[in-house]
């Protein structure tokens, strides 16, 4: 090294390379064995993961003699407790999707990738898989050693048990998934005797392989390179979003504590790298917010534990916004317009769903007016229109429905003397004709009201009506 001052170009190159040291691209070349330590956020994480118990045990809830929530695709009926939703009511699904999309947006804007860190199946399943790994193979150093060790009977035994358990969880996942679409007790009765439908086996197989591959092998690589939501959520954060953050003002310049050191001449960060050790995606939170951070907050636990040991205040890594960190004024949550807009959309979507679920008609009537011809003149001079009534019976029982019509008087309804047998869960068509004397018509279009009514087996009346138009000649 000579003593000449660095040229500007060399200085720039030097800076770039200094920064490049921080930008490690994790492409999964090395398995990340994260350290597990107890802590506040660790506990919260386990509790949030229990949400997925609903996924496993939800299908066994019963309601009025059938599965409480069953997405019966072959019969195109979706049972949600008391309500039966048919494809005709699917506009509600779009509202439901909107609701969850905005819920994701609002939580991400407020507190970062909460979904990724605490609820996402990838995170939760990986967490469980690595927990099993730890129970079988030991702490991270032991695991790394085992991975490198030559194949022995012991290694083979451990690995076999681990992969068997992983596959078992994968299978349970697939089986639970299918249980939402096929009656669960029937599934249990048919699956293991080979009597279940082929798509059932294919789905379970795909889920087993998918769970095993994604949570066992790909792990954080899924979040880095496969998951679109990871990237989308990243852009939904702003300067006011609360995320696990390293307080660089307090921490820098970082430096190791020497034995017997009394005075502190560095920042609070003692460069112990515990935050890196516990990170399930293998990043260093001290580089700031980055794509690999799923905001699981495990580094907060790690840092707090260290700070406690060395007697420095906790919260060197904590939930904080960029504004807070840079000493800018922090707006209260409710004063941010973004929060209000998101909340309004949430409320709108939710009220739409509530309206939809409470106003589900037991029968639905659609009327197709014959277009060719719009009307027909009969020999006696009267005008006849043809209508196809499509009656959808959303109940769980077949109905016998009578059709009536009111409109231009006197009208004669032809083809409706027999009640329509409306099979449940299906659309039953009925063709009727309406005949009106020409003198009774006072325009090309006259409104006409069709009504279908019947009685349920428990004696409760059901009816619905719909307006259509009666066409006549031009005057």
């Amino acid at each position, binding site marked *: 090294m000579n003593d000449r001052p660095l040229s500007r170009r060399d200085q720039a190159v030097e800076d770039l390379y200094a920064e490049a040291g921080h930008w490690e691209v994790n492409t999964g070349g090395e398995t990340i064995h994260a350290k597990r330590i107890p802590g506040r956020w660790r506990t919260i994480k386990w509790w949030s993961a229990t949400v997925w118990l609903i996924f496993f045990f939800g299908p066994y809830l019963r309601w009025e003699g059938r599965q409480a929530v069953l997405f019966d695709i072959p019969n195109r009926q979706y049972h949600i407790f008391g309500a039966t939703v048919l494809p005709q009511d699917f506009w509600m699904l779009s509202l439901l999707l909107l609701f969850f999309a905005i819920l994701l947006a609002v939580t991400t804007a407020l507190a970062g990738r909460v979904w990724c860190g605490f609820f996402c199946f990838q995170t939760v399943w990986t967490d469980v898989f690595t927990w099993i790994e730890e129970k079988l193979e030991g702490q991270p150093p032991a695991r790394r050693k085992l991975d490198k060790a030559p194949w022995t009977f012991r290694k083979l035994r451990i690995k076999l048990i681990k992969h068997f358990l992983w596959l078992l969880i994968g299978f349970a996942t697939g089986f639970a998934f299918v249980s939402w679409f096929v009656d669960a007790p029937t599934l249990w009765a048919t699956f293991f005797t080979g009597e279940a439908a082929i798509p059932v086996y294919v789905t379970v197989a795909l889920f087993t392989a998918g769970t095993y591959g994604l949570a066992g092998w790909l792990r954080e690589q899924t979040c880095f390179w496969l998951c679109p939501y990871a990237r989308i959520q990243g852009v939904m954060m702003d300067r006011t979003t609360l995320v696990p953050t390293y307080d660089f003002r307090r921490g820098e310049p970082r430096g190791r504590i020497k034995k017997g050191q009394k005075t502190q001449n560095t920042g609070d960060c003692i460069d112990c790298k515990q935050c890196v050790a516990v990170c399930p995606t293998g990043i260093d939170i001290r580089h700031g917010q980055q794509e690999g951070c799923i905001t699981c907050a495990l580094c907060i636990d790690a840092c707090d534990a260290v700070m406690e040991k060395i007697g420095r205040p906790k919260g060197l890594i904590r939930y904080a916004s960029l504004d807070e960190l840079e000493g800018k004024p922090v707006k209260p949550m409710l004063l941010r317009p973004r929060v209000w807009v998101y909340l309004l959309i949430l409320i709108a979507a939710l009220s739409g769903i509530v309206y939809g679920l409470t106003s589900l008609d037991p029968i639905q009537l659609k009327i197709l007016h014959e277009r060719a*011809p719009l009307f027909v003149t009969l020999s006696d001079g009267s005008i006849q229109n043809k209508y196809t009534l499509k009656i959808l019976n959303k109940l769980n029982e077949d109905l016998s429905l009578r059709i009536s019509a009111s409109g231009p008087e006197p009208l004669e309804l032809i083809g409706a003397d027999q009640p329509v047998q409306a099979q449940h869960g299906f659309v039953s068509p009925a063709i009727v004709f309406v005949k009106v004397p020409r003198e009774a018509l006072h325009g090309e279009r006259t409104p006409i009201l069709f009504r279908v009514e019947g009685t349920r087996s428990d004696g409760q009346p059901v009816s619905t009506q719909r307006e259509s138009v009666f066409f006549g000649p031009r005057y």
Partner: protein
Amino acid sequence: MAENNPFPGENNTGHVWDDNLRELNNPPPRWWMIAFWASIIWWIVYGLLYPMWPMPYQPAEGKGYTQGFLGWSQMKEYEESLAQLEAVRAQYEERIRNLTPAEILQDPGLKQYTLASAKVLFGDNCSACHGSGGQGNPGFPVLADDDWLYGGTLAKIQESITNGRKGVMPAHKSTLSPEEIDRLARFVTNLSQGKATEAGWALFRAKGCIACHGPKADGVLSRLPNGDIITVGAANLTDGIWRFEPGGYESAKYTITYGVNQPGVEGTRNAVMPAFGKTGKLDEQSIKKLVVYVHELGGGQ
């Protein structure tokens, strides 16, 4: 190269240009390579199992490509699905074969199937003249109304489709004077509006119109005790529905002058319904379905 590598220990390939541009050796991640090779294996296996490679045309097989070990082809799949569909249809078709049109109408499910099935037949064979919904076309009768030249019962409709129809009306331009034609045209126009005069009736009878149009001018020659009518297919002149567009005085005058289907008469009305059954264009089953369909268009009797 390696001995004078200006950037040793950096994982570069030793290729350096312009002082410091060098090629680094960063292989793709292993999972990526696994996926890459897996997709190549997939491609090979797919090529073995399914038709994929072009080959010289084999006249014996009628194909110019490898067959694949599974023997799968789009045509086979299509034929299988078609067979499935036919199996579903067969149960209905079998019942239709054994029932009369009247019996089909008694069974709501079968009626629904027949109407849906006949809609296609109607579109292919009938709608060119009678319109997509039986609304008729200029010169071609409306099938959705209750005015029938040859009767609107199931049996009569079946007869019309099977044997066809050809209306006949003599041209009167040489047998009647223009003045008589004019008076008759006015008479039938008034008749359709319920304002016929006695003088008109007298001329109508005297000129022999009743021979075909019937004593009441309603196209019926006589009624049988069972309700059937005897007709030669002459139009009912008493109602407001006209056989030839646009209807009314001018139309009536034209028809009386030039007649219907008169050979050698220039400008004669053309009114022919092909025989769909006799010519073998439609089989009995299809005609049976069409009878039900036409009967249900709105004017069946």
